[in-house]
């Protein structure tokens, strides 16, 4: 199978900051250099470049090409993946596909965004006509609608959601690359009493936009083995779905494309939810973590809160959750933020988690969420299952 023939041979990440005084390409250069130093690859060996979406790069319709130019990369394959927060994982899967198809051999997957310092996005979508005139502020409002509906259908235990926020914050405290502002422990009570943004979405449900970059180097597994690289991670399952139930006028907003994407990924990997050693879900809002637990089959729909109450999500717990703090506690690097949890999963599988190293490095499940559509759930859902080289 194509996916398993690829390997992630290195990861890199910058410090996440509230507002970068360094240009997005300087962050990209740091990632490139760090990957070369960690893997022993030469720049000339990189013949593919895949970028994630980027709010900073968004004004530039030549984003991947000009980034290749700025980093002086001479490549046979060059593209930007534009499925929002799913782009980093989607980029990893496309790198594996491009290598398998013989288009290139070694791909730099670079996720760099300085949204806080330089946001060039201009949405050409439904917003101008259908939501902006309502005072709708986008993701928090969408998740407010989603949460209220979930509460109506299943009931919602906010204290259970708070446990996820607390666990992730505990991990950010241990992560030196997390944004400093958020490296302070919180309690469930802090979560419950944090101010409302889009009722019932609270401040501590939400990500904070930050600046930063991360990246992985992907090559053929055989080449990695031939080079004698011992620390490699293999994607053994991947599923992706954009616009789940696009052909319906009314959809259940508590259901996401992670159901179908997850089934596909688990089937390819030959694993079930009970086998997952560490869980690194995309976290733009705390409730998204719970919905993904349900959609991926860790528990039945409507039973997410009960599942949360019954499990320990610390790095020492039975289901370690976003051990770098997740985007909610490490900071969201704009549209490159999906790379934060991917890189943390790879770091853990390499056994380089330091103070927050998980015990079971048998596998890790990483997800993405991308884009917020009108009156629905989210636009893109991706799931990737990774294992160290077996």
């Amino acid at each position, binding site marked *: 199978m194509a996916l398993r023939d690829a390997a992630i041979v290195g990861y890199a990440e910058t410090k996440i900051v509230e507002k970068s005084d360094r240009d997005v390409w300087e962050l990209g250069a740091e990632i490139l250099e760090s990957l070369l130093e960690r893997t022993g690859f030469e720049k000339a060996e990189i013949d593919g470049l895949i970028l994630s979406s980027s709010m900073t790069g968004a004004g530039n319709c030549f984003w991947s090409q000009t980034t290749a130019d700025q980093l002086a990369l001479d490549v046979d394959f060059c593209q930007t993946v534009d499925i929002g927060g799913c782009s980093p994982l989607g980029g990893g899967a496309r790198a594996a596909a491009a290598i398998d198809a013989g288009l290139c051999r070694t791909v730099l997957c670079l996720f760099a965004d300085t949204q806080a310092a330089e946001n060039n996005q201009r949405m050409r979508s439904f917003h101008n*006509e259908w939501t902006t*005139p309502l*005072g709708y502020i986008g993701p928090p*409002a969408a998740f407010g609608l*989603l949460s*209220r509906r979930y509460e*109506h259908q299943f009931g919602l235990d906010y204290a259970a959601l708070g446990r996820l926020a607390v666990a992730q914050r505990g991990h950010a405290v241990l992560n030196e690359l997390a944004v400093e502002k958020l490296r302070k422990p919180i309690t469930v009570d802090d979560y419950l009493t944090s101010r*409302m943004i889009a*009722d019932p979405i609270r401040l501590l449900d939400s990500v904070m936009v930050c600046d930063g970059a991360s990246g992985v180097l992907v090559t053929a597994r055989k080449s990695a083995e031939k080079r004698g690289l011992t620390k490699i991670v293999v994607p053994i399952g991947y599923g992706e779905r954009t616009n789940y139930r696009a052909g319906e006028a009314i959809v259940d*907003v508590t259901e996401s494309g992670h159901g179908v994407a997850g089934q596909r990924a688990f089937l390819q990997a030959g694993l079930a939810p009970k086998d997952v050693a560490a869980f690194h879900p995309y976290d733009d809002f705390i409730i998204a973590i719970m919905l993904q637990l349900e959609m991926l089959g860790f528990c039945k729909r409507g039973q997410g809160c009960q599942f949360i109450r019954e499990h320990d999500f610390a790095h020492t717990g039975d289901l370690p959750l976003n051990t770098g703090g997740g985007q909610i506690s490490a900071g969201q690097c704009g549209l490159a933020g999906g790379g934060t949890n991917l890189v943390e999963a790879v770091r853990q599988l390499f056994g380089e988690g330091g103070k927050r190293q998980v015990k079971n490095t048998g596998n890790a499940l990483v997800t993405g969420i991308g884009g917020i559509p009108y009156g629905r759930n989210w636009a893109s859902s991706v799931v990737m299952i990774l294992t160290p080289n077996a």
Partner: protein
Amino acid sequence: MSPLKDTLGVTREPPTPRSFSRAYWEATREKRLILQYDRRSGRYQFFPRATSIYNGHRDLEWREVSGRGEVFSYTIAYRARPPFQGHEPFAIGLVTLDEGVNVMGNIVHCTRDQLKIGLRVKPFWMPLANGAHLLMFEPD
């Protein structure tokens, strides 16, 4: 809990319609709500699109509807960007119209206690500077 505000004093920029949504905004000048109806599937859709969401054909016509429906979900904005800043808290509802589509709109003339999923609502039209109207909802 602070009472809900109506944001009726907030001046909204009139939206720029697309080629396939112009008829909608034109009808709002007369406070009429029209929806795209797909003749092949016999179903409505919202927001207006260049194609049927059901089958990819373009066998669409505009039909006037009452705009009555019930609240599917709602959120209360406690943080907003200009020009809404300072007008919080206000309600944004996702409303299921009786014709079977979900439409978002501010819910006005409604108290915090009244606002619930399932609440019956009807259109309230807020005038925009260009003579068009913005669809809002109020308790029916």
